[in-house]
């Protein structure tokens, strides 16, 4: 029987070239881990899908009341619940992908200390679970649209781009945090805190074009561009899109992803010894 004698060399230094090839070789494992997480998540929670709907629905009601009624934000004839939900969609996607990715290495400690595979697979697979939850919320949004009789414009074809952008933002920050958590356990408490604060620093409950004076400052949050983009895709022309905000977001997210992957790779060699 002929052997496929692929040679592996293990040395003290880093092996970058082989790493990316390995990441590709292990793509099936990525699929399996994502599948495991989705399966376990919906097996364990008896409420399952219902829970994924109830959470954003309640947030939507509260934000509609606070921003639409109490603060009386203008809505350009778009029902305010839709404005909130269109902002909540990317936020929900980001926050569940981010919290999944940031805790992923510790949650898979037994794997990391016993089997070899490119560790980046672990935070990557956490994104998949977030996508499943996102699909559930998206169907809630679709139902709401039909209820209010609002149809999306042609902008909606760009939605996948903004979904990708939200995932990349979560991946970049998640990679940073999960690697930091292994080295310094304090960071476990930082992720939930960041999300708590983040929802108020992001334009989830209001539209940025209603606050022209604050738009530049809000734009420094990489999620602002993503949320603006979602509103532009889903609500059509009623929400204007500021190109400079989008560009800022893309640049910031690119920096997060590159530095995140760099830091993750930098600490990866030590992971098994520290975990």
């Amino acid at each position: 029987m002929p052997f496929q004698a692929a040679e592996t060399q293990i040395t003290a230094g880093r092996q970058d070239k082989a790493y990316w090839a390995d990441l590709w070789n292990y793509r099936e494992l990525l699929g399996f881990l994502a599948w495991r997480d989705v399966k376990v998540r919906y097996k364990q929670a008896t409420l399952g899908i219902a829970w994924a709907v109830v959470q954003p629905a309640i947030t939507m009601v509260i934000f509609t009341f606070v921003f639409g009624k109490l603060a009386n934000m203008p809505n350009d004839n778009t029902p305010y619940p839709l404005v909130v939900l269109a902002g909540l969609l990317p936020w929900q996607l980001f926050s569940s992908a981010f919290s999944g990715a940031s805790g992923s290495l510790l949650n898979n400690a037994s794997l990391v200390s016993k089997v070899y595979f490119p560790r980046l697979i672990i935070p990557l697979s956490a994104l998949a679970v977030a996508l499943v939850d996102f699909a559930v919320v998206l169907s809630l949004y679709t139902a709401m649209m039909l209820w209010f009789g609002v149809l999306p414009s042609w902008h909606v074809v760009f939605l996948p781009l903004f979904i990708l952008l939200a995932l990349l933002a979560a991946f970049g920050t998640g990679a940073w945090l999960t690697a930091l958590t292994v080295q310094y356990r304090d960071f476990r408490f930082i992720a939930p805190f960041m999300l708590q604060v983040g929802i108020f620093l992001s334009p989830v409950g209001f539209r940025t074009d209603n606050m022209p004076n604050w738009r530049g400052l809000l734009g420094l949050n990489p999620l602002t561009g993503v949320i603006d983009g979602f509103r532009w895709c889903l609500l059509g022309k009623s929400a204007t899109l500021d190109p400079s905000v989008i560009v800022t977001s893309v640049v910031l997210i690119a920096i997060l992803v590159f530095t995140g992957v760099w830091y993750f790779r930098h600490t990866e060699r030590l992971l098994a010894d520290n975990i």
Partner: protein
Amino acid sequence: MERESVITVEGLSKRYVIGHETRHDTLRDRLAQGAGSWWRRLRGAGGAQIDKEEFWALSDVSFKVGRGEVLGVVGRNGAGKSTLLKILSRITDPTAGTVRLLGRAASLLEVGTGFHPELTGRENILLNGAILGMRRKEIRAKFDEIVAFAEVQRFLDTPVKHYSSGMYVRLAFAIAAHLEPEILIIDEVLAVGDTAFQKKCLGKMRDVARGEGRTVLFVSHNLPIVRQVCSRAILLESGRLTADGPTNVVLGVYAHGLEENQLARVPEPTPELRERAYVSAVRVETLDQRTLAFARVGEPWRVRIRIVAARALADFVVALGVITSENLGLQTVWSAPCRIEPGEHEIIFTQDSVALAADSYTLVVGLSVADQTIQQFDAARLEITGENPMILCAASSGFGLVINSMRVETRKL
């Protein structure tokens, strides 16, 4: 004939930094430490952190393994065996040196790694296969074989959290055994599972190496099993490779090391015991008083126990227990209850009437006063090895642990 080497290890070293830096340091510690070292540097004390201690888990280890070889890795706990396997399976990086592996390597550092309790047996086979590096197609092709080997057909759709530990282990080993990597790395898997299944695993391991020309690296404390499966062995002592050669020779060197260590296994007595009585030394030896760590099947051996009594004690009993590698209490022997006077005493237990089968036995020593145990501990390990292939290893042969302990008479009628 020189075989092509599939594993080439050259000058492999691994350093761990231990000491005052805690393992999971908090950010605050790190910041405080950073500030401290900055302050020292500022004062010209040098940047070196004196409070760190280096520990070389492996130093300058080199060896080669040829295709189809089953290499045993032996050594005491902490000798670096696990570190070596971790580097070979790429879980951790070496500090210096290189390893070249020809072909796919799969490791089984612990049975059931990556099993998820909520998932069913079927789902776990798919998941675990992927974790161990199998392609989806390969898993599909091997699926029925794995299920048959593990004997879990009826429970395929039951979550593995409901499995018995035996089923769990069987399934995990079955997946790994059907992995078909060119190099299989195994650490102590056979310590679990029932005897019949262990036998099956050993058979599978030999098939993998001999029949299919794959290379196996096998770490175990169970020396009879190492002797049985491995043609060659290496010995690690405090991170250094101290012996490399035929299994018998290397295990001999290892046993010699164990012999020197025989007397060191007696625990320090507590103050309470010092006021009554305690064991001061235990020695396993041959009948002519040579220390012994390896005995042949049928060869007599004895255990010499020294006891220090602080005061006179009535109803004093010394007990010796023999426990097999599978944690089965095989025999217990008591001294006759008696009164002992203060001072040092010696008790000798001699095994010369009954032969024990080949296995790795633990000898337990206990003291009791008036039916109350006052001291009990694992005093020594005794390897009994067989010349006769029929009784090479009781754990895997299915033969009895006590051999020829009855009188057998044959006559023609």
